[in-house]
């Protein structure tokens, strides 16, 4: 492979990343669209095929590695982030992807999830959030809304759900994006942004489980109403939404607010311009927390802040140590300090 970095691969296509395995997700599952988007995004990212590694844990989404023809590791529940950390540190040329679910990453794997983000390790996390445990057939998850009736909460849950964006930004995340599973082009676009980001990227996929939690995101995805409840964010552009493009997001002392205006007139100055690169997490956090009916849900790249990555800092410190430390090989080490002849 030599020392060539990325970007010099032969032109690859969508087809190059499809595997020969039968995809065993349920018909109508939102995962199919996400898989399709991933196989489209890999050729765009531009690494050589052998440099992609997909690492997963356990759950429906974690079957993902079998369905792409890259190197893959389908590991154990909750540990994909920890395993991917080792993969990435071991070989800095690899492009590492972690498809995971709300149970896998936010319940059993919660600790690894926050720590990989805190370290800004160079991986791409695709978090499939269907607010339910699918593979074990319908128990509530850490993202299930308060009061959700599931097999293990027949009278409704009494737990406060995690919001993925809050957790990511709380853990000092440098990239957070959000998409819904029925917008394949937009998924590819946001994933491509995630891939370009240096450090940990988390893309929350609002994904529909047709069997155990059908319609959980329907308030956001219904064809009739979606334009009024989806705010598509684009860096440097005003935060405008609505079927008539007559609503925007502004900030006052109480936080964000929805402002309605005449779409034929000028756009009010108070409407915010999206700055995904703002290091301050304030507005990003507020955007991540918006939820219908009071607010639209923010989609797209909410936060993408340049920062030092774990792997770059590690490589720098190894280079520095190699240049400055006296011990160059293990024989030097064995003979360092006090030694004597007998």
């Amino acid at each position, binding site marked *: 492979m030599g020392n060539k970095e990325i970007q010099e691969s032969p032109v690859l296509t969508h087809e190059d990343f499809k595997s020969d395995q039968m995809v065993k997700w349920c018909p109508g599952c939102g995962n199919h669209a996400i898989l399709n988007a991933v196989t489209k995004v890999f050729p765009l990212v531009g690494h050589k095929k052998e440099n992609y590694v997909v690492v997963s844990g356990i759950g429906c989404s974690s079957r993902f590695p079998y369905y792409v023809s890259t190197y893959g590791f389908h590991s154990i529940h909750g540990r994909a982030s920890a395993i991917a950390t080792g993969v990435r540190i071991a070989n800095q040329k690899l492009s590492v992807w972690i498809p995971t679910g709300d149970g896998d990453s936010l319940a059993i794997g919660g600790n690894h999830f926050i720590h990989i983000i805190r370290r800004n390790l160079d991986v791409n996390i695709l978090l499939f959030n269907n607010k339910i445990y699918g593979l074990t057939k319908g128990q509530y998850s850490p993202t299930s809304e308060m009061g959700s009736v599931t097999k293990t909460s027949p009278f409704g849950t009494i737990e406060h759900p995690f919001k993925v964006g809050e957790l990511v930004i709380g853990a000092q995340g440098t990239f957070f994006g959000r998409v819904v599973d029925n917008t394949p082009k937009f998924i590819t676009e946001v994933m491509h942004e995630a891939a370009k980001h240096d450090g940990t990227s988390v893309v929350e996929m609002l994904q529909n489980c047709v069997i155990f939690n059908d319609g959980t995101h329907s308030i956001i995805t219904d064809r009739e109403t979606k334009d009024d409840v989806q705010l598509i964010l684009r860096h440097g552009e005003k935060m405008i939404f609505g079927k008539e493009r007559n609503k925007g997001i502004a900030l006052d002392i109480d936080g964000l607010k929805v402002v309605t205006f005449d779409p034929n007139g000028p756009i009010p100055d108070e409407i915010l311009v999206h700055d995904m690169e703002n290091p301050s997490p304030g507005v990003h956090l507020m955007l991540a927390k918006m939820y219908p009916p009071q607010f639209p849900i923010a989609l797209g790249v909410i936060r993408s802040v340049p920062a030092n990555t774990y792997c770059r800092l590690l490589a720098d410190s190894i280079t520095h140590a190699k240049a400055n430390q006296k011990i160059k090989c*293990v024989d030097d080490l*064995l003979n360092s300090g006090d030694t004597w002849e007998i």
Partner: protein
Amino acid sequence: MSTSKQIIERDSVVVKFVGDSGDGMQLSGTLFSDAAALAGNDIATFPDYPAEIRAPHNTIAGVSGFQVHIGKETKIIGDKCDVLVAMNPASLKANLKWIDKGATIITDVDAYDEKALEKAGYQSNPLTDGSLSSYKLITPPISTLAQETATQYGMDTKNAARTKNMFCLGMVYYIFNFDLDTPGTLIDKRFKKKPDVAKVNKKVLEAGYNFAETIEAFESRFQISNVQLPKGRYRNITGNIATAWGLLAASERSGRDLFLGSYPITPATEILIEIAQHKSLGAKVFQAEDEIAGICSAIGASFAGSLAVTTTSGPGLSLKTEAVGLAVMTELPIVIVDVQRAGPSTGMPTKSEQADLNMALYGRNGEAPCIVIAASSSSDCFYAAYNAAKYALETMTPVILLTDGKIGQGSELFRIPKVADLPAINPPIVQPNDPDFKPYRRDPETLVRGWAIPGTEGLQHRIGGLEKTDIFGAVSTDPLNHEKMVNNRYEKVMRLANRIPKQEVTGCVDADTLVVSWGGTKGSVETAVKEVNKTGKKVAHAHFSYIMPLPSNTAEIFAKYKKILVCELNTGQFVGYLRATHPDFKYLQYNKVQGLPFTVSELVTVINNTL
């Protein structure tokens, strides 16, 4: 004053420094053992300290100690002390059971006030009530003398009080007739960044030495026989450092970067600390968020082509269990170092035991055989770690390396090898675009699968925790395929027996009785066997380093003896394993589970009673 004192010639002597944790006993012990080694003695050391960083002052719970055995040949840390340096009543009380009548006790009379005596649980002052009359008791006002000296050289009162360990050390140097220059250099090194502190400490040490020479209390000094070891370059080394260096050597020799994913835990932390110092050797050290992330990151690094290691102790190995199974299933090479401590649960973190053997052998769901190797001494940790790495890489199998707190934190002399002289390591790396590559295609002889490393062109494949088809590696629940894969994974481990060294027998090989031991007890069992043989009786000894698989000649050896006595620091885990794997033989057992090593004298008694 006369200095023509009696010289006692001895093959070896045991010295123990005890005091409050924080009194500098570990430092005193280290400086003493280093000086002894430089003076030409063999050494073995063992720190004995509480789990608390600063336990309540002057209490038994807070006693910290450092035992040093110096002499001609010191394979063990020694049963009983010849010289005890005790800084306060509590440390004296806690250690009296470890000294023989006639031994020398040096203790600080300044520390024996009413409050300290009460805290130690003394009804009356042992220095004056006659209870210590069978020992050579030396009770200078150490605190006062040390403080006076230190303040004289410009140190403030508070810090001056802390130099009392150096005063004691000076006295001990006198008793052993050590050159004062040696500790001087060692102190300079220790206080490299504080030359003023180094200077004062040296002055206090000198004062202690001169004081010992002046007073009439020491009627004898020791002359220790010099070491009789093979010629070569030597150093002092603890087991944990030796483990770290063995892994670094294996990384260099195999050409695979070392990746260490670990979470700090007593008594294994020093391995993590040591490897973290050596980024210049390319070692990548990842201090994980927990034990599970430690091993999982190692598994990831192994998948990506590193020599991947995780280090821990018993509670950590419990947490890693599921991931060890994943490494078994995916057939990835990792080394899991368990520096055993007394369990179960949190147990006694600073005390040593051999009770994790069953967990290493069996502690996983499903049929999940690992290779299990045990280090037999502090310096052997180097070779045990090297071989653990070699066999992990060459068999694509997780290796559990068992050491223990005693050999991990204890030290002994280590003959420095050359890396080029260590055995070659040949991992089965698959070449780019190999047309025959299949994830679970095996070498017909060894049953080892190939290592197809991400980043290699044309070898894309998927592995994971789900059972896979033989050769092709597709997900499968086929009953016969599962059984075949279970057998393959087991057989692969068993076939390693063809490549590891044959088991050796030492002592009187033609005896009727064979003593069997494994792991960190080698020194005490070997010494006990020698002592018994010296008395004209006959006993043989087999010490096992390879546990799973056992050496191929194990049954052949056992068949030669009428009695087999298995000694181990647990309730009988190895003997249970031998009964299961070699049921044709009858085994006797001797066990101890006190968080303490075997003493030679107890083993001699047990062996004599068995013959």
